[in-house]
């Protein structure tokens, strides 16, 4: 156990000094790695730990991004505060979705459809609201300052995204070992049995979706202020819904480090292969490679890469 913490500490130390030797391009890749690890972890709370498959988590990313940007542009509210307003709004929408799904017993495929429907409906609504930029989206003015959550260069974004990822690991670790987390896993494993053992499954389902939505939307605020451009199709769209879940699935669903491992493998692959194939005039081919890797992992490592990683690391970590 001690050695695990030492290893994690070492990795964190390396990640902390890394910006000193990385190019801007490489920094960008790392930022996306942390960002997708963070989103994957947020999604993992609902789907990996509690067992309800959401294919509409882009909804919360979009809510977080649009809310914080709207509040900043209209009322000059710092995104650091607006981000939590977005979080609360995302939680409320998540709770409403959860209420429909959990109270009326929508499970499996029906729950999945509900989550997609919510994301798509919100995308269409936002596409038609002028105050939110409708189809053209919103361009953010570049006004670098800490208060505005905008910075020159990638280094501050690097540390913020790293901080997000580390925070999500800490939060999920606490959750995982808590009473609530154990009840969530019980629900994932067998909801009927959990009820029979006195677990208020409705309450813990609602808790899981609220936490998951809140965390996801904070990521959306970060992304908006990193990219400086919001568009309904990228913030609420289907492709983000899928991007978001691939990493935890490949890394290991319902595990603490699964989303991180998945993102550290898939994100660089995606970025590098995208650039590589785009040069050769074969845009989109990276998605094919991506798809093949996902299929291979699901077929041959259904529990995710983390399981094998743990096996390889075991001899090193178990020595006292």
């Amino acid at each position, binding site marked *: 156990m001690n050695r695990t913490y030492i290893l994690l500490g070492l990795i964190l130390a390396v990640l902390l000094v890394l910006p000193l030797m990385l190019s801007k391009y490489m920094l960008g890749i790392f930022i996306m790695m942390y960002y997708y690890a963070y989103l994957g972890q947020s999604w993992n709370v609902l789907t990996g730990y509690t067992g309800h498959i959401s294919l509409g988590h882009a909804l919360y990313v979009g809510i977080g991004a649009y809310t914080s940007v709207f509040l900043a542009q209209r009322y000059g509210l710092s995104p650091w505060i607006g981000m939590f307003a977005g979080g609360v709004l995302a939680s409320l929408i998540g709770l409403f979705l959860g209420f429909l799904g959990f109270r009326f017993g929508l499970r499996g495929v029906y729950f999945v459809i509900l989550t997609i429907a919510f994301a798509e409906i919100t995308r269409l609504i936002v596409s038609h609201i002028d105050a939110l930029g409708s189809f053209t989206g919103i361009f953010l003015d570049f006004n670098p300052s800490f208060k505005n959550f905008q910075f020159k260069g990638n280094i501050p974004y690097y540390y913020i995204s790293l901080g997000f990822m580390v925070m999500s690991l800490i939060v999920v670790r606490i959750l995982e*070992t*808590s*009473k609530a987390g*154990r*009840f969530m*896993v*019980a629900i994932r*494993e*067998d909801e*009927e*049995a*959990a*009820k*029979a*053992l*006195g*677990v*208020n*499954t409705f309450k813990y389902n609602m808790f899981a979706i609220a936490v998951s939505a809140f965390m996801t939307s904070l990521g959306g605020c970060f992304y908006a202020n990193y990219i400086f451009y919001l568009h309904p199709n990228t913030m609420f769209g289907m492709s983000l819904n899928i991007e978001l879940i691939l990493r935890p699935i490949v890394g290991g669903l319902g595990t603490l480090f699964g989303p991180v491992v998945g993102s550290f493998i898939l994100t660089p692959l995606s970025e590098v292969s995208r650039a590589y194939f785009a040069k050769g005039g074969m845009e989109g081919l990276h998605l094919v490679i991506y798809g093949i890797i996902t299929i291979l992992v699901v077929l041959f490592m259904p529990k995710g890469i983390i399981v094998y990683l743990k096996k390889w690391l075991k001899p090193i970590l178990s020595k006292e």
Partner: protein
Amino acid sequence: MAILTIQHLTKKFGGLIAVNDLSFEVETGEILGLIGPNGAGKTTVFSCISGFETPESGKIDFQGQSILKKLPFEICRLGMVRTFQIVKPFPAISVLDNVMVGALLRENSVVKAEKEAHRIIHFVGLEKMKDTEAKGLPLPLRKRLELARALATKPGLLLLDEVMAGLNPTEVDELIKLIQEINREGVSILMIEHVMRGVMALSHRVIVINYGQKIAEGKPDVVVQNEAVIEAYLGKEFINAKSA
């Protein structure tokens, strides 16, 4: 005093009357056997009592309080817990984690719940398997796990649904001892059971139902002599052949 009182319970599934005007009581501290041929409605009775099904009519009182409108988790909190005939372990987590879910009902501290889970795992004899994933357990041990998890919720009344089915005689005898011990600690037990060896050894009283109706009630050795019971299990021909 009765810990559980059931009056005129009726449950229909479409046109099928699964439980028909059934009344009985479980006395505090007793082991009551609920037996009857396949399809007699025993498991439906359990599902109604534990809140998984809503009966069409009738009253169910647990410790003097109506639990008719209560949800399964609320009923468990009041102190009545069921096991499932087709066991429902949490497959991908360890035996210890399985039992801890039950223990956390009465205990907010995870550390204390773990201690309690260890105690119960020891009590049912699963220590060697405590770190095994539940899906890796053979059926007899899964049944024990089902029992351990239920016990961890500290019930006043334990509903056991065929915990002995599929076990060999040695395993049945071990389980009989275990259930007796649970009962000695003050837990009332209502059990559905087909394994007559278990029913005869454990039950203080037995209720026999057929087509959702009670056809006999009394001490186990008396009930098995009852003609209506023999008829329900073996058919009229058997009785006719015997008396001819």
